[in-house]
């Protein structure tokens, strides 16, 4: 860490450690509780069982929910990253009168409470036949991911030296080709983070899905939300542990995907 070993620094590291424990605690104890033989999640554990994991497969809503959630998250990510990247490019590379207005407007979806957006979307969807459909879910979720994509990709475009784009065009590449072969590869880390945000936003979405999913065709979070309100046994801990496992794999893949150069850039910000 730092070269300093005096007491304010030591206190600061200690504090950071405590915050780390606080951030990890609920996730760790979900994992512990998934092996809890007691139906009511009582501590301390009196043994270990895997029957809650078996139970996960007994709940059909979890299995169908996982598939629906994955399909919707992929769809929503595709829509959000496409529209968001184009918009971010327009916002950073062109000067136009309404630019600040458009920039604020694109952040609007996160300024509307998700529960309000979900309720409003339900009223719209039952009128236009999108209620309970995968398309309806994708369109709703993509809207929530869009502001994150615009923010992250805009930041990425601002740090990327435009001289490369100009060089490509001076050498005869047309704007579309320049965008695809120069800009996109250069902002790849921003696109990855933006896509990750959009995916997670959709995959974990509760408030909007609550209104626009049909009973028995729920997304995974809604199935879990209903389960938590009806039963309190550690089945939820078991499926949560599986999801945490997915997250760990996701983080490991992300860390290993960081190219040496991007890794260095992250580290450099700390020097």
């Amino acid at each position: 860490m730092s070269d300093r070993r005096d007491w304010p620094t030591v206190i600061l590291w200690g504090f950071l450690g405590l915050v780390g424990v606080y951030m990890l605690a609920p996730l760790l104890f979900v994992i512990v509780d998934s092996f809890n033989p007691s139906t009511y999640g009582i501590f301390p554990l009196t043994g270990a069982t895997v029957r809650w994991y078996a139970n996960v497969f007994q709940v059909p809503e979890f299995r169908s929910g996982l598939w629906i959630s994955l399909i919707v998250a992929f769809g929503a990510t595709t829509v959000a990253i496409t529209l968001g990247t184009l918009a971010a490019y327009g916002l950073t590379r062109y000067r136009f009168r309404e630019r600040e207005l458009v920039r604020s407007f694109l952040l609007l979806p996160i300024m509307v409470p998700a529960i309000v957006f979900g309720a409003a979307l339900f009223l719209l969807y039952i009128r236009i036949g999108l209620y309970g459909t995968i398309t309806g879910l994708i369109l709703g979720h993509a809207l929530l991911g869009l502001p994150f994509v615009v923010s992250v990709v805009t930041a990425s475009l601002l740090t990327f030296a435009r001289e490369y784009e100009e060089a490509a065009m001076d050498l005869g590449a047309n704007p579309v080709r320049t965008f695809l072969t120069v800009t996109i590869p250069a902002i790849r880390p921003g696109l990855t983070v933006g896509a990750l945000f959009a995916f997670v936003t959709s995959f974990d979405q509760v408030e909007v899905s609550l209104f626009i999913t049909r009973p028995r065709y729920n997304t995974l979070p809604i199935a879990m939300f209903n389960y938590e309100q009806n039963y309190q046994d550690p089945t939820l801990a078991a499926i949560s542990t599986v999801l945490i496992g997915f997250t760990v794999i996701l983080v490991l893949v992300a860390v290993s995907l960081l190219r040496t150069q991007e890794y260095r850039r992250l580290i450099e910000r700390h020097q």
Partner: protein
Amino acid sequence: MIVETPHAAHAVRSHEPWRSRAVVVGLVGPAVVYILALLAPALAILLVNSVYHFTGTAVQPILTFEAYHRFFADPYYGNVITQEIRLAVVTTALCVVIGYPTAYAIAKIRRPVWVITAYILIFSPLLTSTIVRAYGWVIILARRGLVNWLLAQLHVTTGPVLLVYNITGVTIALVHVLLPFTVFPILSVLLRLDPALREAAADLGANRLQAFLRVTWPLSFPGLYAAAQLTFVLAMNAYVTPQLLGGGRVQVLPLLIYQNISDLNWPLAAVEAIALIALVWGIILSSNLLFRRSIAIAEGRSG
């Protein structure tokens, strides 16, 4: 709020031959149209519902302001709003008090392994569902959960402490959910600060505390302010955490909106939705007016 203000001069290219309004519309248009097409009609229908009549079992399209009347006349809703603002303010204050030193510590880390570890620790909970995290807190804080077991083992308490299904549990879990959103804007401002400024302060005879108070703190204030604002908005709009950890004893507008819709009382839910949005935007706008001067000063100094 999330976007860093771009440096206008750097962001604009003026001489490319293919620059035209059509290109801008083609790039920005789809996203704008998409938001407009979905958000505008949906919110409009909800808005219209606020002036409809509720029979007790169904909504009738008869113009009436009874839902507004009920919302403003019944002191219950005033109490809910007070409770919600208190929850959001306490949560935001805790997030800032914990988040600022956290961001400061992370910004000071030099060894690459620890940089990565700190980022994973603070930001990876964002990748797990709020439902999973809420469930984790229930396990830890329940009557017969981990904390009460530990307290009993240590003979600190005689009976179980009620930490969950009340405002305490909601606050503990909400701070956990929102802390990454507080840390991130502060961290990115701290990492952009020129280390030469602090060195200059040291050369001019300032000790570390003085250098922090007179250089780092004022320069990082805009980041802190943006972080606090974002945290407050997210706390006011939170639904899952108050629902799962409040046990029905913590009432906030997002919960009331859902309950009223379950009872098919769309007019009242619509009024509560309008109240929630007006409340959050009103508080954000007035705090912006209040803090405009200090932000301008800080940004002037850093620029």
